[in-house]
């Protein structure tokens, strides 16, 4: 696939926002359980505002993906069948609950935990919807795996928690070491899951090949002409056009950027008690996740590409 930056930002921003909310909610729950020291009262509403901002930015990014953004309202119609439609419902719902949760905290209303439970549930639903948009296309074999969901959840949570840790550190809130430790743990988990999916995808045997694509049983089939020479939607949308070397480079970049460097920076930040390092960890991690998502799309080899191999 040819990675679309609108979708890259949509999924990464959403993931971070969702992770941030989950982190805030877990803090709230653990505080309620007496397991953590309570943060300052403004921390939750501020966090919620950032979550809504991130989700809003993601939503905005997604509009650039559309040919007719003015008709975006129509997208809720097919929630019975379409994960995309479901995402479009889940996202504003989640945003609304987060906003309500933040507002309730701001107003110091009771029952925030209950709203938080609803938010967390919606958050998971949103993760499911977002991930399933990709995982449900069964012939995009790189995506059609539970690992897609796991990765979306873990990478979203990791970046969200890193952001929480950084925010907490910047605001001199309590619990920074715990949050940093959570972040490191999630990044490690994310790394394990992402490596698992890389390992899996490297061993994928494409179920479609030229034999099944044109229905001729022969070991040597080569396309000579795709039927047009100046490109088409099919060649622009589904081919990234980069050399294999670029892909490998991006892979190492995101392994370093989304995982190794953030871990190092988080560890260093924790050791040095440096908010700046934690903030840097988040920035690097987010950039790494953009690379990760670019790779996620680029690596997906669409079977339609079998039909678009050569001009002559």
């Amino acid at each position: 696939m040819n990675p679309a930056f609108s979708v890259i930002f949509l999924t990464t921003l959403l993931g971070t926002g969702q992770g941030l909310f989950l982190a805030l909610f877990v803090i709230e729950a653990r505080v309620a359980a007496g397991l953590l020291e309570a943060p300052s009262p403004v921390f939750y509403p501020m966090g919620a505002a950032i979550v809504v901002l991130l989700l809003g930015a993601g939503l905005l990014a997604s509009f650039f993906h559309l040919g007719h953004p003015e008709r975006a309202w129509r997208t809720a119609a097919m929630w019975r069948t379409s994960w995309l439609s479901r995402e479009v419902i889940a996202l504003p719902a989640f945003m609304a609950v987060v906003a309500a949760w933040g507002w309730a905290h701001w107003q110091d209303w009771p029952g925030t935990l209950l709203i938080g439970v609803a938010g967390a549930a919606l958050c998971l639903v949103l993760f499911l919807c977002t991930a399933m948009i990709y995982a449900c296309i069964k012939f995009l074999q790189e995506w059609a795996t539970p690992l897609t969901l796991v990765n979306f959840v873990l990478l979203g949570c990791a970046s969200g928690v890193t952001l929480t840790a950084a925010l907490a550190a910047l605001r001199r809130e309590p619990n920074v070491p715990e949050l940093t430790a959570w972040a490191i743990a999630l990044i490690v988990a994310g790394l394990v899951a992402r490596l698992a999916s890389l390992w899996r995808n490297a061993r994928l045997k494409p179920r479609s090949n030229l034999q099944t694509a044109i229905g001729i049983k022969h070991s040597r089939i080569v396309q000579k002409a795709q039927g047009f020479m100046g490109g088409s939607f099919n060649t622009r949308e589904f081919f990234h056009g980069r050399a294999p070397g670029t892909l490998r480079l991006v892979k190492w970049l995101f392994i370093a950027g989304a995982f190794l460097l953030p871990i190092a920076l988080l560890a260093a930040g924790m050791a040095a008690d440096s908010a700046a390092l934690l903030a840097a960890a988040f920035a690097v991690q987010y950039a790494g996740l953009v690379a990760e998502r670019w790779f996620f799309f680029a690596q997906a080899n669409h079977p339609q590409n079998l039909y678009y191999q050569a001009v002559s």
Partner: protein
Amino acid sequence: MTQLALVIDLNVCVGCHACVTSCKEWNTSGEAGYMSDDNPYDRDPTGNFFNRVQTFEVGEFPNTQTVHFPKSCLHCEDPPCVPVCPTGASYKRPEDGIVLVDYDKCIGCKYCAWACPYGVRELDEHQKVMKKCTLCVDRIYDAKLPESERKPACVLACPTSARLYGDIHDEESVVSKAIREAAGYALMPEWGTQPANHYLPRRKTEMRIHEDELERADNPLKIDGRLPKPGVRDPSLDDVTSW
């Protein structure tokens, strides 16, 4: 239930592209139009087409087959492009199984194209909606046309009649018969999309020559004094031995 479809006979397709441009011609001014073309007179001309003819080489010299392969929307019976559409713009008509896009509902998110393994949907770069083969739905029911012409433009155009059109759920239709009798197959059966369009494979007619077919009593060489009968006086065993 009706399922209209094309059956493409690779045995006779010579790769002339008649189906490609007749489709464009009909549809750009039709209900599914326009179909834009970018850089029409510049570098890398590119445009919106519903149908393409591709060429494959199968095997190695000298045992090479050149296969011309027309491809358009296969109107799957279980079309993966339809359920993913968030707006319902992409839909399959219950009455005849044609998969269509409602341009007024389409938001141009391209998700349906991602969900099609065959690469037969093309976003129009200017109208910004997804476009695809409609089986010329604005022709095939047009009562103003004579019955024989209520067919997709590509089918009418095809000089080798390599494109058959009909209802694959009707056992007696020309397409069902062709699929049955000429081993029609679907593309990428591994995904369970059940394409309505089918393809008929190459068939090879061979001639078997029996040795004795080269020897015939009426060989004209005999008339012209070649392959003569031996003369009565020519030497024979009768001349030399008595056993």
